[in-house]
């Protein structure tokens, strides 16, 4: 579990770290979309080169990156095996009961494998280089047009930002409460399902009580600092669109066009 890096953030100052979160988010979606356009060796090769460039530009050590996505490989291999066993067409290589391995199946399986890997790699690059808070800001910027239809984008963003800020605090509190109850003889994570549910009570009740307490005091403090509503505020944290963003978009769009032309 500890090795898994999908969803983790590593602070840094690389080219990719410095890009604005909204453009990183949109580029990730765009990249996933063009992956589905790819359908031959050349197109996959082009996308692989692009993602390798992205990893290198993210400043994260390649060995750490590979070690981190290794736990995901089994999930991919499982999917690929299903794909190979159940897809038909082409020359039959092996046959047993309902299972058939065909030449086309193998090729497709290979493509699915690469596709999966590419999606995992781009998402990992995104989360490793963008803090959860920046991602929330990116989402806020992207959703901004929804304000016109009275969707509370700003309130949502502030809520998300505060929730994220309290994650480490609550994690610390959870560890302390677990340790305190362990010292009183609770054995977390063992025994029957019924016992496990029973041991959750002395953990969850104090955790909730604590969280409510935080919320109450925090809302008092926010009010004391002049907070009334989340719509009428100026914003300190902004992400400027930079040359880096434009440059990356140009490259990605060119690659998209290229793929469109060299695909079968």
């Amino acid at each position: 579990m500890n090795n898994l890096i999908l969803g983790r953030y590593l602070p840094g100052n690389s080219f990719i770290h410095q890009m604005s979160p909204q453009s990183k988010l949109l580029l990730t979606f765009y990249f996933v979309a063009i992956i589905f356009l790819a359908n031959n060796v050349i197109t996959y090769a082009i996308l692989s080169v692009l993602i390798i460039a992205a990893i290198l530009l993210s400043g994260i050590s390649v060995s750490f990156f590979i070690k981190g996505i290794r736990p995901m490989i089994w999930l991919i291999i499982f999917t690929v095996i299903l794909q190979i066993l159940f897809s038909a067409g082409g020359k039959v290589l092996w046959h047993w009961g309902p299972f058939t391995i065909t030449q086309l199946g193998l090729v497709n399986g290979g493509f699915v494998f690469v596709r999966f890997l590419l999606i995992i790699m781009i998402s990992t690059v995104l989360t490793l280089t963008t803090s959860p808070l920046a991602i929330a800001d990116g989402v806020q910027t992207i959703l901004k047009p929804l304000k016109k239809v009275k969707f509370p984008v700003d309130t949502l963003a502030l809520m998300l930002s505060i929730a994220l800020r309290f994650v480490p605090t609550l994690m610390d509190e959870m560890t302390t409460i677990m340790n305190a109850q362990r010292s009183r003889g609770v054995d977390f994570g063992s025994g029957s399902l019924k016992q496990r549910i029973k041991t959750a009570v002395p953990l969850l009740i104090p955790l909730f009580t604590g969280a409510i307490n935080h919320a109450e005091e925090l809302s008092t403090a926010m009010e004391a600092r002049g907070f009334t509503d989340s719509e009428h505020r100026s914003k300190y944290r902004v992400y400027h669109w930079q040359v880096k963003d434009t440059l990356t978009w140009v490259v990605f769009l060119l690659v998209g066009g290229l793929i469109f032309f060299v695909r079968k």
Partner: protein
Amino acid sequence: MANIITVDHLSFEYNEKTPVFKDLSMAVKAGEWLAVIGQNGSGKSTLAKLIDGLLEFDTGTITVGGLILNYENLAAIRDQIGIVFQNPDNQFVGATVEEDVAFGLENRQVPREQMVKLVEKNLKLVNMWNFKDRIPASLSGGQKQRVAIAGILAVEPQIIILDEATSMLDPLGRQDIIQLIRQLKAERNLTVISITHDINEAALADRVLLLNQGEVVEETTPAQIFEETDKLTHYGLDTPFVVQLAQRLRDQNIPIPKQYMDEKELIQWLQTYNSTK
């Protein structure tokens, strides 16, 4: 000195069973340091919240800087008061140090260019500029309180209320925050209200207000109240160390004068007494 805050015939209760204030009147003078002392449950933190309009009271009047506390004046009154609360974690709103300092400015819709300048200036003032990118989880309690103070100073209030702001800090963190407030008070002519049960913090005040069960028991100078050691003990408070020491020495027939002396004065007295013998 004119009063900057007046509280007149205030009554307040959380629920019918437990009235906090029945008929409280008090005042804070502009530019003074007032310590509000009393044991837990005496109503001292509630008083701070009432003055800032964070709780609605039943009857009575509160005036802050010439404005009567009501719904229309609420925002203007909150511009004049900054509160540093007890729990450093529960007042840190921003994701990082600089963003937390900006929170009050964002609420007042200060333009960003101006915010950037104010955040830098005030973080430098509390010596936390080098920590501007840090997340709260990586700061000590004392550092978080410094950030809270910077966030308050950024909106330039006239009154700072310390609501047991040092009670969750270690002794060095405590000294550090008090030192900072003393310096800021001198530089900016602030009015400081420190709500505390730390008698050494109260010793720094110009005036002390002793609260017990929602009533003002005594309103006087630290020197005056520190002589009444029985009263302090009776209301669950400590006696300052120098007062205890002077008492012990008197018991040993050392002719220490009756009136309160702070640490410096006592050392001076002992030194003089010893050398003139």
